[in-house]
């Protein structure tokens, strides 16, 4: 087995230390990854050498060892052998590479556009998987949906209410951010990072800042890191609590829906207490954070958290003891452990299908300080399981934020006010953060002038959209909103 470059989360290595593998060796490393306890964190094309010819680059996460493995291979003649048939978790990565670089993953079983459709403006004319038979019908939904929600197109193959297959076409939110990041950092870069997925502002900003810190060899301060961890968990709390309420709403259970709507706002306002903005814009900056949490502010946060924790406990606990809720949550939208593993799911969706995957447990270093981290899993894989995992994570986060507020390290909130406009030259760095939806992976390579040669973002939704499609198999179409909310994936995070 050819050895790959082994690095840790939030560190950089010279580009020349990444081994260039032969096509066969590279494919073996990727396809064999699941069997060796690895999973694909990122697979993309990287401009390489003086010719800048695209090479396939892979980042494998070896969770048990807490390390990342990287390798590249040349793309010869604009084609490479698709690995999707034997390693389904790369299916969307290969489609993305094909689209962005005009190369062909030969043998890909379902090669179609990800964001750039052949007919401009209309994904609905693209090819969809279709079933034939008496009384089989298609239901098409979107891109403009009934609720206040991002755009996507859903195509169901149904027999009556029964869904045989769901295919989701995305790309409507594509703004072209990855391309805009090349040549940076520029003055707009951090703002584009903070809006990759606005509900994950903190998660993506931390991932970016960890990369910058690796590329300038200047770590964040202890106080800055702790304030980031607090902000990250507040972001998780707001979204978990909001979604538990929305799940209640989707089964018509209004007490929890109403309470959680308000409580989510209370949690967003706690982030605003730290940053001035309900989504945490402007808080996380390279080498630390931009705004401190003085004792009086910390005290106010603690008091608000205390009150919110009590109300959250009351509102959410109602779900688990109400038969009308549980009968709608259980055994709906099931994703088996085997399916979750083969698709490479991440985050609460993976943990709710029994996979012990969490950046906080495996790749966080000392990010969470001395607090013991509870990696929560549940085997069931259904809507209940995804809701309950998020509930247990909510409880942990409430305790964690309170503990860290009481034990904020002294010292400066960031190591330096301004980051140099050029970074270390010809480096490669990887940064992982466990956002509320799961693993956020940013990879950057710098050119010989210390500018971004490539910047690859993998939002957790990129791994997980296929999970939702599998969850809908053999379900009632009326359960789609409930299943969808139990994943609550990002459209813009996928479309970037």
């Amino acid at each position: 087995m050819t050895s790959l470059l082994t690095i840790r989360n939030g560190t950089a290595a010279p580009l020349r230390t990444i081994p260039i593998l032969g096509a066969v060796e590279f494919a073996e490393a990727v396809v064999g990854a699941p069997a060796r306890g690895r999973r694909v964190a990122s697979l993309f094309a990287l401009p390489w050498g003086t010719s800048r010819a695209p090479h396939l680059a892979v980042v494998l996460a070896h969770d048990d060892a807490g390390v990342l493995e990287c390798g590249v291979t040349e793309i010869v003649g604009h084609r490479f052998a698709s690995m999707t048939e034997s390693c389904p978790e790369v299916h969307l990565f290969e489609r993305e590479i094909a689209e962005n670089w005009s190369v062909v993953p030969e043998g890909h079983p379902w090669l179609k556009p990800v964001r750039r459709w052949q007919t401009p403006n209309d994904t609905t004319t693209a090819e969809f998987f279709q079933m034939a038979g008496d009384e089989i019908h298609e239901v098409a939904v979107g891109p403009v949906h009934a609720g206040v929600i991002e755009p996507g197109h859903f195509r169901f193959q149904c027999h009556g209410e029964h869904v045989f297959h769901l295919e989701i076409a995305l790309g409507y939110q594509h703004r072209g951010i990855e391309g805009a990041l090349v040549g940076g950092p520029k003055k707009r870069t951090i703002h584009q990072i903070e809006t990759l997925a606005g509900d994950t502002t903190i998660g993506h900003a931390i991932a970016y800042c960890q990369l910058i810190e690796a590329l300038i060899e200047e770590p964040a301060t202890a106080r800055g890191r702790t304030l980031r961890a607090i902000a990250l968990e507040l972001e998780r709390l707001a979204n978990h609590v909001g979604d538990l309420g929305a799940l209640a709403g989707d089964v018509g259970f209004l007490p929890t829906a109403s309470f959680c709507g308000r409580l989510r706002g209370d949690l967003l306002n706690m982030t605003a207490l730290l940053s001035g903005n309900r989504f945490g814009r402007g808080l996380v900056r390279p080498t630390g954070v931009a705004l401190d949490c003085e004792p009086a502010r910390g005290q106010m946060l603690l008091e608000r958290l205390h009150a919110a924790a009590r109300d959250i406990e009351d509102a959410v606990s109602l779900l688990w003891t109400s038969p009308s809720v549980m009968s709608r949550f259980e055994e709906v939208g099931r994703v088996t452990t085997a399916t979750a593993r083969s698709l490479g799911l991440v985050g609460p969706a993976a943990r709710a299908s029994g996979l012990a995957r969490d950046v906080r447990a495996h790749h966080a270093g000392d990010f969470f300080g001395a607090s013991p981290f509870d990696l929560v899993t549940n085997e069931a894989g259904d809507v209940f399981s995804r809701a309950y995992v998020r509930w247990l994570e909510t409880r942990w986060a409430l305790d964690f934020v309170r503990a860290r507020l009481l034990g904020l390290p002294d010292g400066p909130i960031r190591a330096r006010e301004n980051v140099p406009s050029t970074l270390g030259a010809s480096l490669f760095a990887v940064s992982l953060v466990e956002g509320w939806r799961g693993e956020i992976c940013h990879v950057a390579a710098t050119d010989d002038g210390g500018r971004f040669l490539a910047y690859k973002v993998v939002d957790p939704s990129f791994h997980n959209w296929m999970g939702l499609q599998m969850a809908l198999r053999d379900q009632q179409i009326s359960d789609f909103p409930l299943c969808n909310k139990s994943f609550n994936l990002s459209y813009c995070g996928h479309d970037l």
Partner: protein
Amino acid sequence: MAYPAEVPALSDRYLGRPKMDVARCGADCQACIDVCPTDAIVRETRQEGTMGAGKVDERTSKALRIDLGRCLFCQECVKACPEGAIEFTGNHRLAARTRSDLVVEGEAKRLFAALDERMLRVFRRSLKLRQVSAGGCNACEADVNVLNTIGFDWGRFGIQCVASPRHADGLLVTGPVTENMRAALLKTYEAVASPKLVIAVGACAISGGPFSGLGAQNDGLGTLLPVDLYIPGCPPHPLTILEGLLGLLGRIEHDAPP
């Protein structure tokens, strides 16, 4: 909450409306222009400042203005200004009826007018909106959604988001209008019966925000649709959105024009 009778307390770090004391600007200083990530600060070289016999009022002719429709409220300008001439006032009232009214100078009073009599008769007590997310990052969408919750409850003013454009009185648009959403947005607009309103929420829908200039999007609604109400912010605070809507419907008092 009792809004608009009472304004709820916002974070002491909430920024709100910016204010610029151009009298303090150094002669050739453009530190704020240089650091602004979205070119929201512009230097106007105007002739209206000309006073008397060809004498130019130096200060007026170089007046710096902040375009609230481009501003991300990031404070880079505040940090860069050597004279401390820029501050954010914590005032959540930011919405405007025209694009040019978003470009503010100094402490100029806010310009705002409710809909005309004919439109008010139709929409004042019941405004049903179809929301279209066209490349938004989901932050604007989230803070529109929050207006439905028991806290803000815009339903008490007869405002509601509806599922079909056929049931709507107008569109509430977020995002810079990606190329991939342009056709769907225009089709949705066509499906709304006249008279209809268009409300642009957030820096993206107004100007493209942090994505302005990128090829896969259209720098906001711009020339695509006629806009009746602009609500700046990245994202706007829910209170800013609600205040703009209530102002449009003539249900809240506004600063009089200067």
